[in-house]
């Protein structure tokens, strides 16, 4: 008995602070009308989608770009513009305000304000115990966060760079992911582990790691990747409110993205994918920074006459196979664009998953574009070639649609 969802989501994305031109087409405003038939058979009509904790969701959230006339609903306020790291901070602060059990721990999160300014000002407001500066001991402060979560606190552990969390792998895998199961449900671990990862600007091999591929097999955790200020704030809030351990992947290069987000409170679903651009020729699945490369390629493709449907999968574990499946059933061609390594990455799992479930709907084999299986080199030219570039995406779509 599956939950049937009639879902129309179109999103506008404001890309004003990067060198991408805004789309000249009029993109539909984001509508969220959903009729949800729940698994237990009850019907709820969905303009008032609220999660169990009763937050008022913005029913007509419109992310506006500066140059477009979007027909905003008269009930929603114009919203405010901010950068992605500020959006994360806003989400974090709202949750800390709302629940005294929420606390932050990490290196330089307190007095320094966070190496990417996500926790700036919070230590002054909430004190040193609630925004805890830890020594450089990832394994043990992650363990400490998990121990605190076992008793009912809701810690947010920040890895200064996701790559450092490899030191905490034992704690994340054994204790964070599995404790709920091995204790027979006695303990829940409502922890959020977040940090920037991904390939930056010539940061070197050890600081350009994509850990989502290593963590994806751990049972019991949820993984999400944010890509815009709007979903960064929403996912941060959802992750904090979730009773499951959630790993929130941010990207070093996306922190300065600017977007207008609603003034009203909103919480996004952790398991949902976001349809960035509807289309009918090919489904392009992507997440995090590659979303922008895909959108840039999409402009070229549109000029060439293709109509790609772009979906930002957002939820890396578990995959939102519902949204993805509906898209595959419509377009019959899939292209996955990711920043993960080719071997054992998110794309590899997604390819296997789609092949298994939607094989009959595919007209062509799934193409997966990922980063090369090499340590990220320092030299700029080489680094550019490790990640997927828009030109490659265009070529792949053209080949796929032949």
């Amino acid at each position, binding site marked *: 008995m*599956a*939950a049937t969802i009639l*879902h129309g989501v179109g999103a506008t994305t404001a890309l004003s602070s990067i060198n991408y031109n805004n789309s000249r087409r009029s993109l539909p405003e984001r509508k969220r009308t959903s009729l*949800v038939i729940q*698994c237990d058979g009850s019907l709820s009509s969905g303009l008032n*989608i*609220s*999660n*169990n904790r009763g937050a008022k969701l913005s029913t007509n959230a419109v992310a506006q770009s500066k140059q477009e006339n979007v027909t905003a609903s008269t009930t929603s306020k114009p919203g405010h513009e901010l950068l992605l790291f500020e959006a994360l901070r806003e989400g974090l602060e709202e949750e800390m305000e709302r629940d005294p059990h929420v606390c932050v721990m990490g290196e330089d999160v307190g007095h320094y304000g966070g190496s990417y300014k996500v926790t700036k000002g919070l230590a002054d407001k909430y004190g040193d*115990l*609630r925004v*805890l500066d*830890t*020594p450089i*001991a990832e*394994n*043990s*402060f*992650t*363990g*400490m*966060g*998990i*121990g*605190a*979560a*076992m*008793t009912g*606190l809701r810690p947010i552990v920040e890895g200064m760079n996701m790559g450092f969390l490899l030191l905490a792998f*034992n*704690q994340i895998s*054994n*204790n964070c992911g599995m*404790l*709920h*199961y*091995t*204790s*027979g*449900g*006695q*303990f*829940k671990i409502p922890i959020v582990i977040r940090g920037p990862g991904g390939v930056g600007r010539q940061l070197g091999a050890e600081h350009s790691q994509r850990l989502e591929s290593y963590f994806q097999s751990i*049972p019991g955790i*949820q993984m999400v990747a944010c890509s815009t200020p709007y979903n960064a704030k929403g996912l941060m809030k*959802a992750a904090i409110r*979730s*009773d*499951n351990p959630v790993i929130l992947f941010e990207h070093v290069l996306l922190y300065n993205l600017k977007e207008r987000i609603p003034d009203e409170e909103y919480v996004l*679903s*952790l*398991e*949902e994918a976001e349809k960035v651009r509807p289309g009918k020729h090919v489904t392009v699945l992507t997440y995090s920074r590659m979303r922008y490369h895909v959108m840039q390629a999409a402009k070229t493709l549109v000029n060439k006459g293709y109509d790609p449907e772009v979906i930002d999968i957002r939820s890396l574990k*578990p*995959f*939102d*196979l519902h949204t993805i499946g509906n898209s595959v059933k419509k377009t019959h061609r899939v292209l996955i664009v990711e920043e993960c390594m080719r071997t054992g990455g998110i794309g590899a799992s997604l390819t296997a*998953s789609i092949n*298994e*479930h939607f094989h009959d709907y595919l007209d062509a084999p799934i193409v997966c574009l990922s980063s090369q299986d090499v340590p990220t080199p320092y030299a700029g030219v080489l680094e550019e070639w490790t990640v997927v570039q828009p030109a490659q995406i265009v070529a792949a779509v053209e080949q796929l649609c032949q």
Partner: protein
Amino acid sequence: MAQLTHRASALHKSIPAVLFAARGLATASTSPITVETSLPFTGHKIDPPSRSVETSSQELLTFFRDMALMRRMEIAADSLYKAKLIRGFCHLYDGQEAVCVGMEAAINKKDCIITAYRDHCIFLGRGGTLLEAFAELMGRKSGCSKGKGGSMHFYKKEGGFYGGHGIVGAQVPLGCGLAFAQKYSKDESVTFAMYGDGAANQGQLFEALNMAALWDLPAILVCENNHYGMGTAEWRAAKSPAYYKRGDYVPGLKVDGMDVLAVKQACKFAKEHALKNGPIILEMDTYRYHGHSMSDPGSTYRTRDEISGVRQERDPIERVRKLILTHDIATEKELKDTEKEVRKEVDEAIAQAKESPMPDPSELFTNVYVKGLGTESFGADRKELRTVLP
């Protein structure tokens, strides 16, 4: 017999003359008896507590019963393992009972205990029942972790027992997290993070200790030094086997872990210290009769003479038995009856556990995630993934 009277007279010399004790188990009194611990405490950067411990006849009888129960449970687990009813890893605690019983006597249920995989007896001490323990060992549904954890993953949330961890040393940062939460909520309780002499060489221990000392967390790190990390003797693994001194800037106390009263005194002292001044390390000098686990005979790296020597001279249950007999709290026969009772209790629990049902196959997928935010994951291949959007 001669040895017993010799011991008794030795004790007589050093205790004040409070030999007023009620006769018979049924009327055990709570009037204080003062006993001296077998060995003095050794302190590192701290003044050790006094050797005189106050106890009562009721407490001594409880100690005896509890330790006998634990001993019996572990021996029974040994036979169950050999009968292939318990599979996988089974790490037995017999010989070390005094540590867990003495600790329980000094604390309450709001204090937290977290330990490694040698957790059966600590689970009992925290309020776990024999049935839950045996059912979990045999992988049944009525086990404390619904059969999904096994020997190394006993937990009891209501009793403040946080497990039960398989990876050596990983529980110590968790223990510091528990202490952090206690400090955060200001509830005047402490955490005992237990580990072994093998785990004492783990880096995360020192990381956790640094943080605990930095923020004055009420964490008490208890090293149960049974002198062997599986097959490696402590002097072959640690440059400095004085584990209570290894905290350096954190004070430490070395305790005779086979003397339940010494353990009780040390834990009480440590709790007071931790609530005021932050972390402290307790090293319990103890011994395990079994090997590291059931797959280890325990005799390839130590001599049988050593094991029987410790059993004769330092056995914790025998020590309490002698105390009880010397103070005329109960007769030899009454203690034997207690042991018989305990044995019967254990046998009944085993019989009941053997009858209890195996977990349902659908239990494979429960408790992976906490329900509430939508996803029910039904299988590694996600064939039945159901996303209920809120």
